[in-house]
């Protein structure tokens, strides 16, 4: 259930995102989801992609600063209140969330990528409550 997310350090200047995406595109690596955290000087691009290990190697060889981190991905049906329910469970069990981002596919079920402070506990809690988590393979390859 643990998904490898690739984080890339980017300077805040025109064209830095283009460089990364072109490089991945040429290598045939597909992006499933991404989010960009930014400050005034630099940003951290977080991506879920078809082959995280190959992408890490490729980007490192091309001089990018990258790191792999573990995230979980929760399926949330597109109905009011379902996300709140999951988040409440985590809060009640003292699992903190560092950041999260969401994306949707054609199937009307939203995917929420969560980076918790304690990933194993997070998975355990969500699964016990029969909330559905994405398998890594589902995330890397659509």
């Amino acid at each position: 259930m643990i998904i490898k997310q690739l984080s890339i350090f980017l300077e805040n200047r025109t064209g830095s995102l283009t460089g990364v995406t072109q490089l991945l595109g040429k290598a045939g690596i597909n992006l499933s989801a991404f989010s960009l955290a930014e400050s005034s000087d630099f940003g951290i691009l977080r991506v879920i992609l078809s082959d995280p290990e190959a992408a890490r190697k490729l980007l490192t060889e091309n001089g990018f600063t990258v790191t792999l981190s573990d995230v979980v991905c929760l399926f949330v049906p597109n109905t009011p209140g379902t996300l709140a329910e999951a988040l409440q469970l985590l809060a009640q069990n003292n699992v903190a969330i560092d950041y999260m981002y969401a994306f949707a596919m054609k199937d009307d079920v939203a995917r929420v990528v969560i980076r918790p402070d304690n990933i194993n506990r997070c998975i355990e809690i969500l699964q016990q409550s029969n909330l559905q988590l994405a398998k890594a393979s589902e995330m890397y390859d659509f």
Partner: protein
Amino acid sequence: MIWNESNECMGREEMRGMQNRRLRATVEHVYHNSPFYRSKMQELGVTPMDIETIDDIVRLPFTVKTDLRDNYPFGLFSAPMSEIVRLHASSGTTGKPIVAGYTRKDLNTWSEVMARTFAAGGCTRNDIFQVAYGYGLFTGGLGAHYGAELLGASVIPVSSGNTEKQVQLMTDFGSTALCCTPSYALYLAEAIHEMGAQNKLKLKHGFFGAEPWTDEMRREIENKLNIKAYDIFGLTEVIGPGVSYSCESQYGMHINEDHFFPEIVDPVSLKPVVPGQVGELVLTTITKEGMPVLRYRTKDLTSLFYDECSCGRKFVRMRKIMGRSDDMLIIRGVNVFPSQIESVLLEFGETAPHYHLYVDRENNTDTFDVHVEVRPENFTDDMTSMLNLGKRIEARIASVVGIHAHVKLVEPRSIERSMGKAVRVTDKRKLY
């Protein structure tokens, strides 16, 4: 071992008395024997009568490198050529070299301060010295040579270069002490390992100088050669190597205060700094005859500290040279040395030692930006900790330098690498 205990361990009051007498004699000597210094003093309206104690040194004129160039070759000598027994010159990469002349007494002084240096590093008459500094006009080779001979050690005057021969002599003759530049010591160490000769060495002491080196470099030399490495500081204009030397504490360098009087001044105002603060080292020779210098501006940045040393020597210590005053920036009225910023960045393992400083002026206020590369292995996905890293560096710079800098973390390898002397500062202010 302390070579000259009565001088090296002399109490402060007694030392002051000696410095008072020696400064008076030096001023008297140059005033009457050097037209250059006489006219400089006359311009300031100072006569030898005005110099009573060492504190009066601030009334004397400064000497700078261009004075030596402008008066090439012998214009600053204070003794007739019949008294000069040796000439040395610095290589002078730009324009004319600078020339120094020594009387017999000056050579004795030089040998004495070098013997002190070697004794402070634990050497005795039983040691075998391999002097791999260049012999010739450069002061390194002969300076070390005569010091080691005075100590009574056996000297191998191999000079610099010819690395294989160096290693061969080192193993065959059983050299126990090595004198050379720190970068050559590292080069030699690698050659020794390549030749598989490390177990055949008897080397125990190394005396390195003539170029700036870091503590990391010292540890590397010590590990690779399995020796203790000592610092020698000096300059041709003053005497050559032997102005100051490190002792067993390996912390700072004791200045031979009975021969060379140190001051630390603000490089802009030329006023003395608060004791302990960093500024430009200014040296006055108080026993030299051939070419004494009054208040010679070394352009080297350091600070002095008078704390008691565990070795027993009472000479004041100077810190490792932190940079050159020519590189100084004045930002919002505060003197900033790129080397200070560099040392802060080196404290943080998360950043690489590649940086660039940008100074500009917006709305009549100076802006100061420090770009530093993130180390790939220390990058974390956590925005807060990355932002905190920048803030922690900013706080450290503020406490060391005294002004706020904006720290910008940049991608690895984005800062231009240069062969040779790195250009690390861009000053976009149009102040002149």
